[in-house]
């Protein structure tokens, strides 16, 4: 089976998510032990979420259907180099010829794809370092983001039953002042998780479950009432910074951005994504630093009403 990837491949702001969903759907029709060939040649831009969709489905096909994954190389050398820097090719076992003459992406702005089979706080610190290259945060805000990321990873580990736990990948964009990072697992999905406690959700599209998961304190685990805080914190954080987030889980896709004139978008899919993917895009501004409301702001930073 050949899957043609094109355009600005990813989910969320500025990306062409229809292409990603079409590719995901095609990949998921692969039969037992079939070879899945990913044709990257016409990809113009690769977002972290695009890579995570491919790795999550790729892993699912490898584990569940014993499929093999192969790929070619993007014609665009910048994309080719990013593909290599992101760690995707290593994960699926293909080497990409990297052109050392192309200063395509600043390596220090890339958080290489990592599989979190255990909660590795030093890796979380590395991701925060990449985020902080674009977004200045006070130590207290950095701590909040760290705790929420940890909470998100723990939620995945404890509730998703994912065979590979989760993959995280991120990138900062110094020219457009944006940060994107993405977490993907191969688990049961938000609907089945919340359905343990809220049975009515099981008969609805996954977007209903995603919306419910975004309410503070909502969890599918009986007895752990304050779980699920990671997702709501990030939702608030993204909305505060200006940005967007996308959640793809099972047969639903949810997209929300910081614009009061835009309603969140909900899409019912005609296939089941094998897991959950959460993608965040955060806007940053040079010379702006984030402080917590309760913090004392140093003199060199002005508060603008």
């Amino acid at each position: 089976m050949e899957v043609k990837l094109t355009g600005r491949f990813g989910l969320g702001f500025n990306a062409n998510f229809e292409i990603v969903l079409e590719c995901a759907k095609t990949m998921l029709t692969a039969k037992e032990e079939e070879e899945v060939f990913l044709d990257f040649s016409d990809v113009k831009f690769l977002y972290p979420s695009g890579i995570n969709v491919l790795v999550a489905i790729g892993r699912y096909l490898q584990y569940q259907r014993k499929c093999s994954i192969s790929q070619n190389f993007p014609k665009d050398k910048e994309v080719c180099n990013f593909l290599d820097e992101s760690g995707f090719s290593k994960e699926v076992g293909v080497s990409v010829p990297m052109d050392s003459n192309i200063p395509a992406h600043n390596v220090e702005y890339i958080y290489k794809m990592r599989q979190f089979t255990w909660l590795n706080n030093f890796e979380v610190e590395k991701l925060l370092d990449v985020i902080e290259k674009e977004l200045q945060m006070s130590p207290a805000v950095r701590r909040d983001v760290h705790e929420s990321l940890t909470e998100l990873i723990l939620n995945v580990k404890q509730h998703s039953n994912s065979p590979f736990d989760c993959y995280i990948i991120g990138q900062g964009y110094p020219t457009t002042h944006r940060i994107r990072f993405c977490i993907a697992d191969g688990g049961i999905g938000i609907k089945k998780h919340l359905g343990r406690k809220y049975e009515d959700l099981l008969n609805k599209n996954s977007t209903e479950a995603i919306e419910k998961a975004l309410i503070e304190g909502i969890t599918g685990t009986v007895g752990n009432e304050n779980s699920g805080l990671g997702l709501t914190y990030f939702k608030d954080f993204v909305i505060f910074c200006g940005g967007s987030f996308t959640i793809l889980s099972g047969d639903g896709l949810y997209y929300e951005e910081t614009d009061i004139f835009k309603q969140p978008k909900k899409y019912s899919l005609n296939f089941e994504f094998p897991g959950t993917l959460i993608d965040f895009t955060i806007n940053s501004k040079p010379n702006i630093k984030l402080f917590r409301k309760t913090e004392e702001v140093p003199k060199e930073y002005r508060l603008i009403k």
Partner: protein
Amino acid sequence: MFIIKISEIVGEYCSERKNVGDKKGGQAIRELIMGFLNKEERIEISFEGVKIVTPSFIDEAFGKLALNYPLEKLRKKLFFIGDTSEIKDKINKSVELRIKQREKDMS
């Protein structure tokens, strides 16, 4: 008096609910507190040297105490020392939620 230094038991990252291998979670702290709650008049808890504390850890270590002990007893015996204003907010929230859960379970 008994002193619990969280960083010496768990380390600088207090994230997990349960113990994972050698890494202690919130459960270890709760069990330690429960072991001394009836013996000691005063249990001091220090977060010195701790970098992050997740809500899950807090809930497992302190929130769940409210399921087994009355709030009055916890107030009288547990003392958080050092600069803990941020952490105390989380503990209060967690204990509040657990008290609500206990009341709901009893009704």
